[in-house]
């Protein structure tokens, strides 16, 4: 585990460098963006000075990373360029972070049991109608990008049936849960787009496990089928499934960026997209880094769960 933690830390460090370099080489910066057509070189230079953009890149990097590690996400470059003394990123993203988390958690809440359940179902009935039905449905769903799925859902449930709200406007400070109907379509879009991958891989893992010798042996020892499925097949299929699900959750992050834009959902994804457009480096760097942290954490947690599930891995090799 120690090695994994170290690996995660190294990954994050490299990711931070990549993010920092990536965002620093962007042509133009918040200063010129804020100034817009009015940006004379002198004005840009003055603003850059205010924003410490004139300091060496390494200094900027260490300041930023140091702050990040201590929970200080830094300032919004746009805010600084607008002349504000402090424009803490955290104040900008606290609501979006909360909203995105709620969206992701609710999706995960459905996704995990559904992928496991449907995947296992398809595996147990492999080759039979139930399996085919699940496979075909999941194939159809993965074939489309989220924004098409989202648009189609809106077409059906708002334009045609008029039963669900097509956008999810959440007033600041209010929880998305205060009107759960607004979450239905975004969650459904994410589920449709992500579930298929989970189902298919859980199914594959489960099919393999069901063919394992120990499952046959358990059956030949007269163990009940339910016992065999849960204690023998599922338990061992779960370990690879956990990694699949972790990957799916990671993938969800990409899906959320698109889905939030489609449904005007005030989350981290839509904030990131506008921040990239605005060259708000402070926000882009911190949000990107936060996402990278979540990404790596998901891997770590998945590894941890797999360790718990697979006794063999618990010992030093």
């Amino acid at each position, binding site marked *: 585990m120690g090695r994994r933690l170290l690996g995660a830390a190294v990954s994050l460090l490299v990711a931070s460098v990549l993010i920092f370099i990536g965002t620093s080489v962007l042509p133009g910066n918040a200063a010129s963006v804020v100034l817009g057509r009015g940006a004379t070189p002198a*004005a840009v230079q003055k603003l850059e000075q205010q924003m410490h953009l004139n300091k060496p890149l390494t200094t900027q990097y260490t300041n930023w990373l140091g702050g990040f590690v201590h929970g200080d996400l830094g300032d*919004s470059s746009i805010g600084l360029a*607008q*002349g504000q003394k402090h424009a803490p990123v955290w104040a900008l993203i606290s609501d979006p972070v909360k909203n995105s988390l709620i969206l992701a958690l609710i999706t995960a809440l459905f996704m995990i049991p559904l992928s496991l359940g449907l995947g296992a179902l398809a595996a147990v009935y492999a080759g039979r109608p139930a399996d085919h039905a699940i496979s075909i449905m999941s194939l159809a769903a993965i074939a489309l990008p989220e924004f098409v799925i989202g648009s189609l859902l809106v077409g059906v449930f*708002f334009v045609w049936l008029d039963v669900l709200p*097509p956008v999810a406007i959440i007033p*600041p400070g209010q929880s998305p849960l205060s009107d759960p109907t607004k979450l239905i379509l975004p969650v459904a879009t994410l589920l449709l787009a992500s579930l298929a991958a989970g189902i298919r891989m859980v199914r594959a893992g489960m099919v393999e496990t069901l063919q394992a010798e120990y499952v046959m042996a358990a059956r030949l020892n007269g163990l009940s089928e339910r016992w065999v499925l849960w204690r023998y097949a599922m338990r061992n299929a779960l370990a690879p499934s956990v990694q699949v699900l972790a990957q799916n959750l990671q993938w969800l992050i990409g899906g959320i960026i698109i889905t939030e834009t489609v449904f*005007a959902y005030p989350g981290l994804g839509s904030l990131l997209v506008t921040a990239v457009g605005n*060259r*708000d480096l402070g926000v882009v760097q911190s949000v990107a880094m936060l996402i990278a942290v979540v990404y790596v954490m998901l891997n770590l947690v998945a590894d941890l769960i797999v360790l718990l599930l697979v006794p063999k891995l618990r010992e030093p090799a």
Partner: protein
Amino acid sequence: MSDPHNPRPETGIELFDHRISRGTLLRGAAGTMLGMSPLLAAACGGGSTSSTGTSASTSAATPVKGGTLRAGFVGGGTAETLNLYQGVTPIDESRAQNLFDPLLVVNPDLTTGPGLALEFNANAAATEYEIKLRPGVEFHNGKTFGAEDVIYSMRLMAKSANFASVPFVAGINLKDLKAIDATTVKVPLLYPDADLGANFVYWNTWMVQNGEKDFTNPVGTGPFMFDTFKAGTQSTFKRNPNYWQTGKPYVDELLIQSIDDNNARLEALQSGQIDAMAQLPTADAKAHQATGDITVLVAKSPQAMMFYMDTTQAPFTDVRVRQAMKLIADRPALVASAINGFGSIGNDIVGKGLPFYDNSLPQRVQDIEQAKSLLKQAGQENLTVTLQTSPIFPGFVESATLLAQQAKDAGVTINLKQVPPSAYYNPSALYLKMAFAETQWPPPSIKFFYLQALSSKAPYNETHWKNTAWNDLLFKAIGETDQATAQQTWNQVQKIQYDQGGYINWTNADWVDGLSTKVKGLEPHPAGVLGNYLFMNAWLSG
């Protein structure tokens, strides 16, 4: 107001002919989502307020008081600001216009009326003005508005950080501004300007209170008072019970919502999550005019959409090539397809409907044969050029696509290069370096456009136009106090641009917005979207 231009001190109020509209003068790369939505800015009042199709309803009925009006705009993300001297996007404008007041207001027929100022009185040479202010106006915090507030505002506008307002006060001798009494300000100028009042209708120039610093809790004299603001998300405002226009506003609360995606904004309107949306895509506007499930608000406007050619870059250094390109464009087809007919056909000069616009110039029409022969003369048969465009405004990519098609007939190959909206107006990236590109101007006045885009010191000289004689002519026109002479001079200025300039103006595009059918009182207004943001006129029925 039949003779709009001349300041007539004795009549006070009716001095000024035209008003500047609102709109983004200086829009930057800022403000918009990565491309899905236009950064639309407002433009200035042109002619009529007529609207195609459905229009805002019955002002005849008695307004009902109360309720919350929720308006959706393209958001500006974290770049959204309450500082009206820095704002560039419609959503910034929507807040500023309702928190603050102008010295002069724009009427729906593009005349001006008294706002916080009652009179703009110039001396004979038009080198010094005296502004008479409306007495008894109170800020939201109870302080009385007066001359010191105007002086403070003008000096704040000139601060370099407030880039959006700087150009408007560039001709004023700020050092010698003087409060003659509590409601009178003396304004000396650096060069003659026959129409100073026109500078103070545009929203980047509205009045703040003496001492305003960071706009985190802005205090104005406007119809609504600041409540909350979350950049990129939502802001709320409370009704100003002491507003000087008695009885207004009608609604208790105003909510401004950022929704970047055009589709989402329309869906929010249709599903009742907002009551009004700015910038309804023209195709949707057409569809909903037919169904009538929402009110489509259409206002004619002088918002110019143009292709421009850099007169210092080959092949556009040759005036014949520029003329040929102007002849290639099929303007009616562009208007019909690129913006679904929501606009009038452009005539290569800016500001249709504004005072001093030269209406005598013949309408330019497509003439492929003439274009071909001009190109042949210039030795540029089989010309190949690259046209830079961006989805930064609706109709940009569409019109560029169509122009490329139309050019094929003249043997000209136009390759399109699309850049992200965020980079389009970025001077450190491509802006002002492109040989052939698209642009949009919502000029508050013709004077303003020529100063900003074509004069010898113009900061945004997209066509790199340099002509000393023409420049002298321009300043002569600006300072000319005689209406008829001024019009003549302005016509000369515009004719030269029409014949030789680098702009191909294909349309003056309408403002097109959507309203819930229960929203009443908002009338089409040439100066800006959603009835020029005059939410104090709006009320909710049922």
